[in-house]
C-alpha cells in the first residue's frame, strides 16, 4: 500500500517580472509507516513541496495521490477525511497555535470539528491521553495553561498533540525542532519516532542532514526546487553521489575538536542557467553539458537515484 505519492509536481510562483520554480518536476513516494526526510537549503522548495502534498497549495501541474486518489479532486466529505488523516507540524509553534486559546481547546478543536468524541467525558479522556503521550504531565495542569505560559518546546509538544489526537496516517513535520534549544530537540524528535512506531508515516522537512540521518530511513535532497538525489539514509550519507549532497555533508559541523569544515562548492552568486543543471554556477565538477542540459534522475545503485551529468 502506497500512502502518498507525488507525480511530476510543479509549483511555480509568479511575481511581477519573474517566475520562481519552487518545486520543479518532483516525484516521490512515501511508503506506509516510513519516515523520510526532505533536505535542502532555504529556498530549495522543501516547505512548498510539503504543503502541496497536503493540498494546502495548488500546483501548476502534476498530481498528489492519496491512496491513488488525486487530492486536488477530492469531494467535500473525502477532503475532510483527508484533512484529518494528514497533518502538518510547523517550525514555529507560537505562529501555529492561537495564543488566546487554552491548551485544552487547542487540542479539542480538531476532535470537535471531526466529531471524534461521543461525549465531553470521552473528549477529555482523549485530550489527557494525548498530553501524556507527548510528555506534558500532569495533563490536568497543562490543559488549562495558555500558550504564552509554555516554553517553545512545550508548545511544540502541544502542536504535536493536536495532530496526534486525530490519529493521522501521515504527518508533514516542517523543521519541527530548528527553533528549539539543542538540549530538548532529541526529545521532540522522539515523539515523531514513537508516532511512527504506532503506524504514522512522516515526511520530515529539515535543512540539517545530520538530523535527517538520525530519524529517517530515506533521504530526498532538493536543490532550487529540483530533486537532485535520493536513496536510503546509509547510501546518501556514506556514498553521496551529487556534488551538492557531498557539499551538504562536508559542511556539517562535527562535535570533535580539531575537525575542519570543508567548503566543496564554488563561492559565487551567479544565477542558475536557464536550461542546464541548477547547481552549475557552484559546481566544482561542471562540464559544458551541465550548462545546456538539465540532468535527469538515474539509478546509481539499487534504490539510489541521482540527477547529475557525472553519472
Amino acid at each position: 500500500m502506497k500512502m502518498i505519492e507525488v507525480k511530476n509536481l510543479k509549483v511555480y510562483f509568479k511575481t511581477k517580472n519573474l517566475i520562481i520554480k519552487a518545486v520543479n518536476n518532483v516525484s516521490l513516494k512515501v511508503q506506509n509507516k516510513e519516515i523520510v526526510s526532505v533536505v535542502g537549503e532555504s529556498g530549495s522548495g522543501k516547505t512548498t513541496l510539503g504543503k502541496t502534498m497536503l493540498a494546502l497549495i495548488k500546483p501548476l501541474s502534476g498530481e498528489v495521490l492519496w491512496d491513488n486518489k488525486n487530492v486536488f479532486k477530492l469531494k467535500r466529505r473525502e477532503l475532510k477525511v483527508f484533512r484529518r488523516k494528514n497533518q502538518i507540524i510547523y517550525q514555529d509553534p507560537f505562529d501555529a497555535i492561537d495564543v488566546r486559546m487554552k491548551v485544552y481547546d487547542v487540542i479539542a478543536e480538531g476532535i470537535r470539528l471531526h466529531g471524534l468524541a461521543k461525549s465531553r467525558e470521552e473528549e477529555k479522556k482523549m485530550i489527557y491521553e494525548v498530553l501524556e503521550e507527548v510528555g506534558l504531565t500532569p495533563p490536568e495542569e497543562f490543559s488549562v495553561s495558555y500558550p504564552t505560559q509554555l516554553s517553545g518546546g512545550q508548545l511544540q509538544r502541544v502542536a504535536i498533540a493536536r495532530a496526534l489526537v486525530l490519529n493521522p496516517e501521515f504527518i508533514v513535520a516542517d523543521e519541527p525542532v530548528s527553533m528549539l534549544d539543542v538540549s530538548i530537540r532529541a526529545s521532540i524528535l522522539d515523539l515523531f519516532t514513537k508516532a511512527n512506531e504506532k503506524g504514522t508515516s512522516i515526511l520530515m522537512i529539515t535543512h540539517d542532514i545530520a538530523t535527517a540521518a538520525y530519524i529517517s530511513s530515506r533521504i530526498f535532497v532538493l536543490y532550487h526546487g529540483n530533486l537532485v538525489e535520493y536513496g536510503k539514509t546509509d547510501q546518501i550519507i556514506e556514498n553521496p553521489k551529487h556534488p551538492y549532497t557531498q557539499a551538504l555533508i562536508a559542511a556539517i559541523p562535527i562535535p570533535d575538536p580539531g575537525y575542519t569544515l570543508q567548503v566543496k562548492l564554488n563561492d559565487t552568486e551567479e544565477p542558475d542557467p536557464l536550461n542546464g543543471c541548477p547547481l552549475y554556477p557552484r559546481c566544482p565538477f561542471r562540464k559544458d553539458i551541465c550548462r545546456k542540459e538539465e540532468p535527469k534522475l538515474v539509478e546509481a545503485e539499487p534504490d539510489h537515484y541521482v540527477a547529475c551529468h557525472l553519472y
Partner: protein
Amino acid sequence: MVVDGVILKIEDLKTYFKTKTGYVKAVDGVSLYVPNQMVVGVAGESGSGKSTLINSIFRVLPRNAEIKSGRIFYQDKNVLEIDERNFNKNIRWKEISWIPQVSMDVLDPVYKVKDQMIETILAHEDVSKAEALERIYTMLKSVNLMPEILEKYPHELSGGQKQRVVIAMALLLNPKLVIADEPTTALDVIVQAQIISIIRQLKKEKNFSMLFVSHDLALLAGLSDYIAIMYAGKIVEFGKVEEVYKTPLHPYTQLLLESIPDIRKRGSKLKSVSGSPPDLLNPPTGCRFNPRCPFVMDVCKTTEPEIVKVSPTHYVACHLRK
C-alpha cells in the same frame, strides 16, 4: 582565573535586566578570560545569558540593563570605567569589534554599503577617503565579495553577503579582539561553512583574539581553543576545547554533547536534557541546573557550587567534582 597573556578578563560580572516583576539575572557572576590570539567559544542555549555577556563587553546593552557588579579588563583597562565618548572613539570597533547575528540587521538600510564602510574608518582614523577605500577593497577581497557590492543597499544583499559585509566592517580597523555573537546562525550550512572558513583564514592572517558565542557545540568544536559552557547566567564549565569535549565534567555539558547529532554515529540514540530552561526571574536556589540534573543531590538544592580548578586550564562548577 588569572593567567598571563590574556587580552580580555572578566571578573564576577553581573548584568541584570529590570522588569516590572523584578530583576532578570541574565549574567550572574561570570568570570572568564580570553588568552592572547586564542578563540574562546561560549556555548549556551537561548536564555543562558551569552548575548548579554557579549553586549556587556561591547557596551551595547538595552536601557533596562544594569551592570550590578564586576569588572571587564581589556588588556589593563576596565572598560566599564571608561566614559562612553572615550570608549567609542578609542576602543569600540578599533580595539574590540563585534560581529552580530545576521538577523540583527546592523547595517543601516538607507545607506549604501560603501558609505557605511567609509564612515567606520573615518570615525576612528585620520585617513583620506582614498586610503579608506583602498583598505575597503582589500578587505572585501578577503571575504570573497565583489567590489560592486559597495554600491548596493543592504536589502539588495543575500544573508550570506550581508554577513560578509558585517565581518569586513568588523575587521576594517584591525581590532585585537573580535567578539562574535552567533555570526552564522540563520545561514544555510554551506554558507555557514564558507563564512567560518573566511573567519579562520582572517584569524590566521591578522592574529586577533576572539570570543565566539554560539548555541552550536559542534560548530565551536572545530573553531575554538577554549570553551565556556553557560547555563542560566553562569559559567558551569570552562577549559581547553579538548578537555571539555573529551572529558566533560559538568552533567549539563555531558548531556549537551550527547544531544547533538553526529553524522558518524547516527545509529546511537540522541539524549536530551529533561525539563525546561530555568526562569531567570526566579532562578532555582542552589545549583541552577539542579531541577534538570540526573545526578542531583540534596546539597545541590541549597548551596550553589563554586567553580573549581580541576586542571591548570579546566574549571567546573558542580558539587560532584569536589
